[in-house]
């Protein structure tokens, strides 16, 4: 499990870089001899998510780094170290996110014994060590953050959600788009009944009044929402939830276990998912029997806020 930690050190030392550099670093770090926890292979089995994509997803989910956004349009940039805090039953809990040097990690693990704060380290596959702090109050965590050399973000999940727009369909003024030209594109439509993608053709995409279409060509994926006979290019997750507005049974929430679940084919928008993951610091697990993603330890107010942004009801 040490490889993702080394990758985070590498990202933190380099600060920013291209997507090619990230992929090369993943390959170099994971192909090193003596890694008894993996077979050194970075080639995915059929149907598996490639390792570099899985690592990228987890680094994004935990707010360690940003990919392909403002300030790192062609690659990635590491975020500053931050204690992402949120209230829990016995006080306030925080997850250490962002850049991490070996020295910073040591400071985090050896928080001054005079501070009333419990430190816990969790290990998950393809994720840098999850370092969490539990303290009686946010002011204690602010002290901890100062000692560690990190920012302290109070109510982090709520703070992130509060800035996000909902997944609404395009408005009348939205700019329309055209499907990409060429016969080489593989076209799929999202089936709202089976909640799965299925192969379709260009003619159907062009005539559909409503629907979400994926155009894929080599490493390029583009998503188009057909809405009231117009065509709009949108981020996949936003278009998907706009299409599935108030879909029965899509989002599940168990008040007892505080687990929020959704179909594996319906990944939420990246930042919304980050808010859900910051509730626990633990990436979602996939339940193969139900084919659903499970987000653990999500408080009811965060679950309801997320559902509202996704235009879904919790069931």
């Amino acid at each position, binding site marked *: 499990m040490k490889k993702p930690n*080394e990758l985070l*050190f*590498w990202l*933190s*030392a*380099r*600060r920013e870089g291209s997507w090619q550099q990230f992929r090369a670093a993943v390959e*170099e*770090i994971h192909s*090193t*001899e*003596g890694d008894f926890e993996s077979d050194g292979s970075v080639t995915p089995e059929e149907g598996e998510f490639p390792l570099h994509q899985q690592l990228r997803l987890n680094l994004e989910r*935990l*707010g*360690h*780094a*940003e990919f392909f*956004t*403002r*300030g*790192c349009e062609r690659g990635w*940039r*590491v*975020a*500053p*170290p*931050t204690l*992402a805090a949120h209230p829990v039953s016995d006080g306030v809990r925080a*997850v250490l*996110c*962002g*850049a991490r*040097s*070996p*020295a*910073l990690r040591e400071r985090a693990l050896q928080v001054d014994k005079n501070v009333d704060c419990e430190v816990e380290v969790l290990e998950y596959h393809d994720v840098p060590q999850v370092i969490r702090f539990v303290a009686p109050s946010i002011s204690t965590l602010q002290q901890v953050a100062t000692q560690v*050399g990190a*920012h302290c*973000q*109070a*109510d*982090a999940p*709520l*703070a*992130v959600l*509060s*800035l*996000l*727009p*909902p997944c*609404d369909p395009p408005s009348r003024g939205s700019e329309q788009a055209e499907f990409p030209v060429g016969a080489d594109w593989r076209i799929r439509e999202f089936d709202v009944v089976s909640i799965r993608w299925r192969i379709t053709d260009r003619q159907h995409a062009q005539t559909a009044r409503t629907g979400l279409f994926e155009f894929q060509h080599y490493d390029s994926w583009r998503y188009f929402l057909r809405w009231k006979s117009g065509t709009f290019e949108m981020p996949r997750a936003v278009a998907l939830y706009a299409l599935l507005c108030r879909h029965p049974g899509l989002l599940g929430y168990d008040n007892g276990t505080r687990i929020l679940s959704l179909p594996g084919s319906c990944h939420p928008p990246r*930042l919304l998912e*980050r808010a859900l993951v*910051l509730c626990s610091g633990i990436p979602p697990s996939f339940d193969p029997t139900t084919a659903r993603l499970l987000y653990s330890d999500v408080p009811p*107010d965060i679950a*309801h*806020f997320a559902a*509202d*942004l996704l235009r879904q009801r919790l069931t």
Partner: protein
Amino acid sequence: MREERDILNVLCPAHEIEPHFVGGIRLERITWLVGFPPRIRFTGELGDNFRIMIDGKPALPAIDGAFEAPGWDAEGEHRLWFADRAETYALRTMDEGWERWNAHNFGTGAMICGAGIHRIDGTHWHQARIPPTHLLLIGARPGDIFRYQARHDVHSETILVLVPFAPVWALPIDPIHADKRTARLVLLGSREPASAAKRVSRDRNADRALREWVAAINGAGCKQLALADASEDAKALWRRYRAVAKRLWKRMR
């Protein structure tokens, strides 16, 4: 060059002996992170007289076959010498001091970067959790008043707001016309009201803010809105805010 583990490497003549820096955390072409140095190995046939030096000290094979010498993994530049050839490698520590930047902007005046949020203009605003029915925020200094523009596209039991001052009270947006059966005075932080005398300004905006601060507190007081936190401390603090507002009201008339 053949792969390090290539079985034919043993047949390489001496001039084909090649060093390999394997593993570690490589930051640049010949630079690694301190604490994560590479293992130094060789391919080719290493004869009995084959000598390796690192920084002028004889290097010996470790248990895994990689070569080490005293201080070989310390911070700084190192010189590896073998068979009349030399290679350089370096180890450096990581500089801290990562900056946040405006990574995700959804037009709210605040940005998301990693797990944190911050104002787009870099100013430090205070964060508060408030009920969506109590959007008028009052600070300790007379004139510290902020009306939060609620978003209407989502509904939440609690909303998080960024305020340009440390908020002490959250009130209904129009205290004098609030429904006293449901509206409350929500205490957000126990800060004493600043002395009214400290606030002297001829700025029109500041004067208006001062009047609004006074009107909001007096309005909530006249309406006899109940405190959400009915502790004696909270009641006493609210009485002190009312006293400051009343004094200012008399002075402004």
